[in-house]
């Protein structure tokens, strides 16, 4: 046993020495990496660590942070009803818009891929435009305006389904579905582009080979040939849509107001804004951020291990 440890240590030491020598020889690499690495550490890694650290303290920027253990988390889960509402809303939005948006991204990318070249490029612009159209989603607040001038209300009243206008964006019953609709409209994002590009890169000869081997229709082709080829893009797209689904805040804030009636459209991120930027309770806000962070990472890992099985 002792000998084994001895050998193990010798090996590790040797490895470390080799790595050190390599590192010494590749100083140039580190010089190239340094600007990015420093900024990345400062604005992406360190904040995560700091967020976990501050979540155990009471901190309001003016006074130095005061350690208070798990108190933030305890009050977050046991006392803060609004936080539970926000978690419920975020999960609801993520569970509904995430998968639908993801599948729609792939479906449309796949269908677009069948089109001739120039139609395809026009179609990509049409489907991708809502994502990059800035705050164009504000237009939906006109469609769903609460008075009789709102187009949806006017239309429904004309047909005779309703006789009084519905306060779409003020009534808590309708808020979330409308937000989900708008989010779905904007969900063909980066993942969609990745799918479109990936589908074009699938080797044509594989389809012909599949035809010879008895693939009968486009659905079989999709499952047996396209999907296994697209696996890396599928993983990338999943990361993108999960990140998007959990980070919803702009749409709900713009459409339903901030704060929304009865907090019915509050998401974790808006809750974070409330405590971070309005009340400057940074410690509490960091606890919220940590919960959000953990949820996103865990969800991503789970979905990725699921997606690895596709088409195998």
């Amino acid at each position, binding site marked *: 046993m002792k000998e084994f440890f001895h050998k193990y240590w010798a090996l590790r030491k040797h490895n470390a020495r080799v790595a050190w020598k390599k*590192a010494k020889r590749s100083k140039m*690499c*580190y010089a190239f*990496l340094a*600007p*990015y*690495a420093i*900024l*990345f550490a400062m*604005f*992406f890694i*360190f904040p*995560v660590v*700091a*967020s976990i650290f*501050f979540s155990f303290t009471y901190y309001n*920027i003016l006074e130095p942070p005061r350690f208070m253990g798990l108190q933030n988390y305890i009050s977050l889960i046991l006392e803060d009803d609004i936080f539970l509402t926000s978690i419920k809303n975020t999960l609801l939005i993520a569970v509904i818009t995430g998968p639908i948006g993801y599948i729609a991204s792939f479906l449309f990318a796949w269908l677009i891929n*069948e089109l001739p070249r120039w139609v395809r490029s026009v*179609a990509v*612009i049409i*489907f991708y*435009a809502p994502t*990059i*159209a*800035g*705050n*164009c989603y*504000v237009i939906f607040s006109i*469609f769903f305006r609460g008075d009789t*001038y709102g187009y949806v209300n*006017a239309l429904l009243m004309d047909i005779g389904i309703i006789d009084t206008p519905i306060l779409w964006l003020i009534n808590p019953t309708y808020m979330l579905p409308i937000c989900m609709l708008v989010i779905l*409209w904007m969900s063909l994002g980066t993942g969609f*582009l*990745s799918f*479109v*590009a*990936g589908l*074009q890169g699938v080797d044509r000869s594989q*389809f012909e080979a*599949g035809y010879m081997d008895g693939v009968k*229709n*486009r659905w*079989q*082709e999709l499952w047996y040939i396209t999907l296994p080829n697209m696996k*890396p*893009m599928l*993983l*990338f797209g999943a*990361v993108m849509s*999960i990140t998007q689904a*959990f980070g919803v805040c702009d749409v709900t804030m713009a459409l339903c107001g901030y704060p929304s009636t009865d907090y019915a459209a509050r998401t974790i*991120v808006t809750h974070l*804004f409330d405590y971070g*930027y309005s009340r400057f309770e*940074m410690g509490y806000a960091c606890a919220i*951020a940590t919960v959000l*962070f953990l949820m*996103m*990472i865990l969800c*991503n890992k789970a979905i990725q291990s699921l997606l690895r099985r596709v088409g195998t």
Partner: protein
Amino acid sequence: MSKRKEKKAQVEKPYKKKLIKRRKPNRSIGGDIALYVFLALAAFVMAFPIIFAVNAALKPLDELFKFPPTIFAQHPTFDNFTDLFVTMGKSWVTFSRYLFNTVFITFVGTFGHLIVASMAAFVLAKYDFPGGQGFFKVVTISMMFTGWATAIPNYIILNKLGWIDTYWAIIIPAFASPMGLFLMKQFMEGLPTSLIEAAKIDGANEWKVFSGIVMPNVKPAWMTLIIFSVQALWNNKASTFIYSEERKTLVYALQQVQSGGIARTGQGMAVLVVVMIVPILIFVFSESQILETMASSGLKD
């Protein structure tokens, strides 16, 4: 017809395309028709709000409130835009200042991001050095959570640095966006290593290899980084990091116009168009390059 032309036509005949191309295997005509109909419907639904917004911006005031609404403007005018510029022109901080703020932030942020991320991507893609792969893995993981999760500590850090209420609070974090590095690195891996080795044998140092050989060869990836960076920075309200009115961004100022209620409906629509036109135009002109880059965007195990 001259003899020569006749001859030419004869020669070209075998190369002429057939009128009906051989169909791809495994495709039924019925399925294709269904596909076109479905895609046309979906495209209409996706494009409708944007078309509506653009037309609403072109409508004169009496048409804006007409019911039933018309999708296309009957008498298109640019009144809403000129009104917008009049409103903004005489405001406390002038329109040109807001525009300058946004353009400055977008331009500097995008340029810096392009340089910094490409440098890192170059060594990560083409050299094997201890820590490189580990670093890239961390960058990939950082794409899995949104910027919101780190917004509060970021605020604290920027506050400690004294950058709150300056442009740098928006610009510098944008340099390190993980998405850009990821896409750039994946794309650079497709470059033949022999190209770099050949340049090195000719006596070029690393910086020359990077700026002279690698960068000109990854132009499609530039466009992709630019579109993602511009999209993020152009739409950045910066309301949490910048407090002084004279440093606020265009989007923030325009949203104030938008929240002006019924009387400002027309101008609000003009605002929507002004804000969305820049990212969409960039995308339209660089679509093929972006798709070329995205082809290598996959996450490998």
